[in-house]
């Protein structure tokens, strides 16, 4: 029995990288779930290859999954990788630059044969396994494929199927390496392959083989442990951003008592929302895959007219197509939630990459004076509450609302202390009540309440028959009106109605930091994690800094201006060319500092920290 030392680590970043076919996403998910169960905090970031599957083994075909976990608060998936698992040459080539010097490489030697090397575009004769640069790392080579086939030699499965178990070997090994039990994964395998005895058996065998490989092989002398993190008490689950949106919508449906309607046209990275919702029919969720984005939003407008909680979802190019119909919803003053999972633009751009691409289009991308509230999620878990809020605003203020997320939030995962349904607030709705159609009193669809909100009168309600449309309407009666004064009144009223929503949202709060001081780092959306981790570090270093993340982008919280003015400088980091910065400058005439990264990937801790530190130096 070899003796094994166990070392405790505060945080680790592991990257699983392999061919699209190697099941790295699943491996990452399973290891993430098991990590979550240990109570560590964590953040993940999958990076898929571009939409179309490239041939196996090629650089374009590499699929990766990065997990950052620790016994302290974890805000980002990690700048640099401590442990890289590379299933083939292409995976090593595309990811080596991300591994910190001294990091660990776990390589599947079977993925480095001449074919793999050629596909990974290595020169003939060149072999990375012999690359001297590898000396800067702790390298473990194992013949995952061979070992897998061996341990399955008695299995009735064909080689192709056997090889599909490869990832279980790796997973088993890592579970051992991080002092975990195999229970959670075994449970998964049992349920996932229920009824497929052979496959179930094979996966189990391979998993255990990998686990014991670590245990028995002499080369491995250390295991590691990452203890649980100081998270708030409670029950947690792991959640991805698009999933959280789905739950937020269903919650809004249940809490408002309105059936949920989702009209959409598939588009990366929003499609998963359609997929998940279409599986929730027992919640009364109706999904409609329309012929295009225009039909999708129009179907949602029709459903809203009919009294449903109506939602349409898309990504940038689709949102660009919905502009005209958004204007209609705005004129009709019907509740409508427009979900935009942002991706790299312009045009088709970078469909699988993340970008805070569409804030300006969300605010201004329609003809005429057409104010629409905008709400943004800041993290995978936050997407639940943000989507719920967006739906609430749409329903209670009778207006289209745009909800913004992005590819990073959509596909990222984190622990979520999910609420009890009984703790989720009701969304009070009242439809206009029917009356005697012969009482001679014409119904007035545009008579507003104190919040400038018009009544929601459903077709089918006795006595309320009325006509609405996209032409300018007369105040109160809703009749078509070309009257000049009425037009100005209505334009201003529609604007005031949206402004008024500021009375029904919380004031802007600080995520952390000093109430006033040198630097406020102001973010929106998916920059949340990196800003928080940077501000955390700067605070620890004793800087007078703070972090605020804006969820409500239109209207802004009332106190936002004053908050910003309490700091010598305001820094706005964005994964775009400075869209929030534009809006802030316009609205508050504050000379903000921008930090922009437009690479389709998140800002790293180091990048932002160095920039902020420099800025603080100048103060």
């Amino acid at each position, binding site marked *: 029995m070899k003796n094994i030392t166990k070392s405790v680590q505060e945080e680790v970043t592991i990257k699983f990288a392999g061919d699209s076919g190697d099941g790295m996403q699943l491996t990452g998910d399973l290891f993430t779930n098991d990590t979550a169960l240990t109570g560590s905090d964590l953040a993940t970031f999958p990076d898929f290859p571009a939409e179309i599957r490239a041939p196996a083994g090629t650089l374009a075909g590499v699929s990766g999954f990065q997990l950052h976990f620790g016994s302290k608060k974890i805000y980002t998936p990690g700048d640099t990788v401590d442990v890289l698992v590379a299933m083939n040459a292409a995976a090593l080539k595309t990811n080596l630059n991300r591994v910190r010097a001294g990091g660990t490489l776990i390589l599947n030697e079977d993925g480095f044969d001449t074919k793999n090397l050629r596909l990974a575009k290595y020169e003939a004769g060149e072999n990375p396994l012999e690359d001297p640069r590898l000396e800067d790392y702790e390298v473990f080579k194992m013949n995952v494929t061979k070992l897998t086939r061996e341990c399955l030699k008695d299995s009735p499965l064909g080689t192709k199927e056997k090889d599909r178990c490869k990832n279980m070997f790796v997973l088993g090994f890592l579970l051992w390496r991080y002092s975990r039990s195999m229970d959670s994964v075994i449970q998964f395998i049992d349920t996932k392959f229920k009824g497929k005895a052979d496959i179930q058996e094979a996966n189990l065998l391979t998993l255990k083989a990998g686990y014991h490989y670590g245990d028995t092989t002499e080369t491995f002398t250390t295991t590691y442990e990452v203890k*649980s993190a100081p998270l708030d008490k409670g029950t947690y689950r792991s959640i991805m951003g698009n999933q959280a949106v789905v739950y937020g919508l269903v919650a809004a449906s249940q809490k408002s008592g309105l059936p949920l309607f989702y009209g959409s046209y598939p588009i990366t990275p929003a499609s998963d929302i359609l997929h998940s919702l279409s599986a929730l029919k027992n919640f*009364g969720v109706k999904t*409609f895959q329309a012929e295009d984005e225009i039909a999708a*939003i129009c179907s949602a407008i029709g*459903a809203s007219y009919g009294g449903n909680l109506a939602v349409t979802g898309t990504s940038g190019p689709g949102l660009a197509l919905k502009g005209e119909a958004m204007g209609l919803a705005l004129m009709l003053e019907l509740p409508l939630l427009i979900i935009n999972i942002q991706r790299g633009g312009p045009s088709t751009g970078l469909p699988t990459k993340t970008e805070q691409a569409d804030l300006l289009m969300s605010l201004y991308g329609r003809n005429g004076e057409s104010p629409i509230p905008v709400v943004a999620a800041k993290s995978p878990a936050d997407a639940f509450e943000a989507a719920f809020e967006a739906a609430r605003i749409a329903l209670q203020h009778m207006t289209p609302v745009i909800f913004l997320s992005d590819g990073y939030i959509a596909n990222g995962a984190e622990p979520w202390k999910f609420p009890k349904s009984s703790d989720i607030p009701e969304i009070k709705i009242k439809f206009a009540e029917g009356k005697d159609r012969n009482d001679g009193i014409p119904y007035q669809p545009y008579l507003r309440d104190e919040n400038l909100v018009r009544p929601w009168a459903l077709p*089918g309600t006795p006595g309320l028959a009325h006509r609405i449309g996209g032409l300018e309407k007369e105040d109160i009666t809703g009749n078509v009106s070309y009257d000049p004064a009425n037009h100005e009144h209505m334009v201003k009223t529609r604007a005031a109605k949206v402004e008024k929503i500021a009375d029904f949202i919380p004031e802007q709060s600080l995520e952390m930091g000093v109430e006033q001081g040198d630097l406020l780092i102001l973010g929106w959306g998916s920059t949340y994690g990196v800003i928080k981790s940077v501000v955390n570090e700067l605070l620890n270093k004793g800087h007078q800094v703070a972090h605020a993340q804006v969820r409500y982008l239109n209207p802004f919280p009332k106190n936002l201006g004053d908050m910003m003015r309490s700091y010598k400088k305001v820094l706005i980091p964005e994964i775009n060319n400075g869209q929030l910065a534009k809006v802030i400058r316009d609205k508050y005439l504050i000379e903000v500092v921008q930090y922009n990264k437009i690479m389709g990937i998140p800002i790293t801790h180091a990048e932002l920290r160095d920039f902020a530190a420099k800025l603080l130096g100048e103060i």
Partner: protein
Amino acid sequence: MSQLPKSNIKLKASDYATDQDVRWCPGCGDYSILKQVQTVLAELGQDPDQIAIISGIGCSSRFPYYMETYGLHSIHGRAPGIVSGLKLANPELSVWMVTGDGDGLSIGGNHMLHILRRNFDVNIMLFNNQIYGLTKGQYSPTSELHKKTKSTPLGSLDHPVNPLAFAMGSDATFVARSMDRDPKHLQEMLKRSAEHKGTSFLEIYQNCNIFNDGAFFTFTDKETKKATALFLEQGKPLIFGQNDELGIRLDGYKPTVVPLNEGEFSADDLWIHDEFDMYKAQFLTRFFDDPNHMSEYYLPRPFGVFYQTNRPTYEEMVFEQLDIARKSQGEGNLDKLLAGSTTWEIQ
């Protein structure tokens, strides 16, 4: 649509009219259509509060403003999308969609294709005046070739859309044609549309007396009507002509006009109309000769129900799936959903 929400008190056509003054040009064919719709709704006794009229943009699409029912005057070409969502929110409503040859076949052509194949339970009235009325007289997809308009001073070059052939090509479940100037026939067709459960596609020839006056007079005018218009009746032979002296035969599978007054052919030799026969309906949609260039035995323009078939409506199937899901998985539970499969405790 079939299930007709009845109004409890007996209503007159005028009860379906709003107080808004109608803003169509004097003499516009739209007036007649408006009147017939109001008349038919009264006859069917449909409860105005259970009716929603959805339109796009165009002169024709102003229609909802003149109907004392629920109405939504949407954006150009997009009425089908709105109808689809509305029907999925409230399948009980009697929904009528009003569109034009530009609204429904130019900018809205794709939505038309898809609503027809999906077969929502809605009655579509396409006012075809072979012109863009509201924008003051450009040619439309149904304008005849070489038409001189504001935007085509030397004549249009676009081979015109054949709306009913397009509807058949889109697998519509109800396909019919009528005209503004034949109130009786129009009322009949409106009733047939209303009775059909599924998407009814009714093309209505409508005169735009300002920008395309008389486009259909050959078919609608007393003088020429009998010789140029063929009125389809289920189970009846295809006969037309000033004195019903002409008939249509399927000679092999080529439709041909034959004289009935020369002894050679009698009614028994003629094609018998069967609105359930898709193949025949496809033939009939091709009776589309340009009346301005009639050969002697040119094919008359058919009016009536070309085709109908029964397919489940889209909304039926959607709600069926909701029930199945509820039965098999049980009513959704929010707490279970939020918790998902794996959770853990932090003490």
